[in-house]
């Protein structure tokens, strides 16, 4: 079974979000980058578990500049066999998906896994786009994945419940919470990651369909109004008459 796991970087979750250049650019100075949690905790770890039981290989792919190699090495330290980096700024989701699909066309992968979403752009876009570009089935928000021969059984979140689906390889899947348990890389993994193969490929020409022109921050909250814990009638009154939410 050949797995391709899409790995993106994301600012550490404690990052204070700020913008520069007249609010047109995310302020990168001082930002720590991590592997996007959904990609690392769920997509990558489940692919590794399945490879361990079924045999095969786990390749990661990242669309991004050379600076992204630290997060790629982290994925290798957790256990991926080899990595690919498409040497380009991930301009928009379509551009990113296009690059991954181009690479995947050559690779003969059985399952392509993405995370549910990136925690910076939160689009939940790349996985569905890859599936469309490859004309493969797409299972979104999978919380469980089992594979038997060429058939996978997947739990997928739907509004108000869970759907159990059966799908044949090859397919694309986005991984959500529940798929696997986070793995902490050990010393041996970290050492091994240094020498694992990291292939760099140049981007194929592709237009970006959307552009992020500028950003804003949410309005600051007004002062919190404190209410005496003995006086919940007052809270109810404020929620009704002032906030008008009940």
């Amino acid at each position, binding site marked *: 079974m050949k797995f391709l796991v899409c790995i993106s970087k994301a600012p550490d979750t404690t990052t204070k979000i700020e913008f520069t250049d007249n609010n047109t650019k995310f302020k990168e100075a001082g930002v720590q980058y991590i592997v996007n949690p959904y990609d690392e905790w769920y997509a990558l770890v489940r692919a590794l578990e399945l490879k361990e039981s079924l045999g095969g290989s786990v390749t990661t792919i990242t669309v991004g500049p050379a600076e992204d190699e630290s997060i790629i090495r982290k994925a290798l330290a957790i256990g991926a066999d080899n990595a690919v980096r498409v040497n380009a700024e991930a301009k928009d989701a379509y551009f990113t998906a296009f690059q991954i699909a181009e690479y995947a066309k050559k690779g003969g992968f059985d399952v392509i896994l993405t995370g549910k979403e990136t925690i910076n*752009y*939160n689009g939940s876009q790349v996985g569905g*786009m890859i599936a469309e570009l490859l004309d493969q089935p797409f299972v979104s928000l999978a919380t469980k994945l089992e594979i038997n021969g060429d058939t996978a059984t997947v739990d997928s979140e739907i509004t108000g419940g869970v759907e159990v689906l059966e799908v044949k390889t090859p397919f694309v899947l986005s991984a959500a*919470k529940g798929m696997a348990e986070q793995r902490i890389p050990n010393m041996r993994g970290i050492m091994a990651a240094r020498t694992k193969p990291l292939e760099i490929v140049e981007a194929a020409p592709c237009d970006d369909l959307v552009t992020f022109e500028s*950003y804003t921050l949410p309005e600051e909250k007004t002062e919190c109004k404190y209410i005496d814990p003995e006086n919940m009638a007052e*809270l109810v009154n404020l929620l009704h008459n002032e906030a008008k*939410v*009940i």
Partner: protein
Amino acid sequence: MSVLVYIDTLSGSVSKAAMEAAYYGSKIGSTTVVTNGEISSAELEKLGNCGAEKVLVDRSITTNDAGQVSKLITTTAEKTGANTIVTPLDLTGRAVAPRVSAKLKAGLASGVTALPESDGKVKVNVFSGKAFGFVKFNTDKKVIALTPNSLQIEKTGNTAAVEEFSAGVGESTVKVKEVRKQEGDVLLPEAEIVVSAGRGLKGPENWGMVEELAKVLGAATACSRPVADIGWRPHHEHVGQTGLAIRPNLYIAAGISGAIQHLAGVNGSKVIVVINTDPEAPFFKAADYGVVGDAFEVLPKLKEEIEKFKAQN
């Protein structure tokens, strides 16, 4: 301009998020809604009240397989001449919108929170609700995936014309073996009021008071991540940066410290009430109303007062 709105109605009814998408469409052009499955025509007609002129339903498609549904959308868009497609960013929308975008090479704005600006740009959630971005489309065709609870619908009083049709999308490549529904509860992504609790509640056996308060308010329940991780509550209740992002009218948080990752998922809420024993808890900085007190005492009292209020109103 002609707009096509796709909504998932497999539950047999039209969700609030779906009505918002129809309303959004009607604010930018003449709107046709397309859906599939067995939902009754009477239910679909009501979409007129949110501004839809027409509803097309393909009853032969009985699943929300992204492959089939995206074909349903693109064939219908071709038929109606729509160049803007709107879908709620609910769980089906997440799977379908990107497929449609890639199929049509149409720009996708995902997580939209407001009607387009005068120059066509749209505002979207980024950094898990910690900021907003303005997205410019570089394509004539556009796909908009709308964040639930972003708009207030103005009812029109109209009914929509419902028409059955067949888009001829072929077989699904995904087989649905089983559907497990979560019964009864108010669905968290759509809830107008959410009662949420964290580690301050000490153990799963204490959630009764959270559920009771939720019940009298007609609210959904949610929790912080550690609470879902230790198994006190189911994963689908976990809100925050690595869980669900929600934007109810009222979010009541008890025994949650208000870590930045938690706030990311809830700071789109219109009004936040925080109940915490620690006056220094960071959540108070994001709160509209704060109660420094023990959740074990405050929650039952609040429930009692809500009951009194409901009895009078």
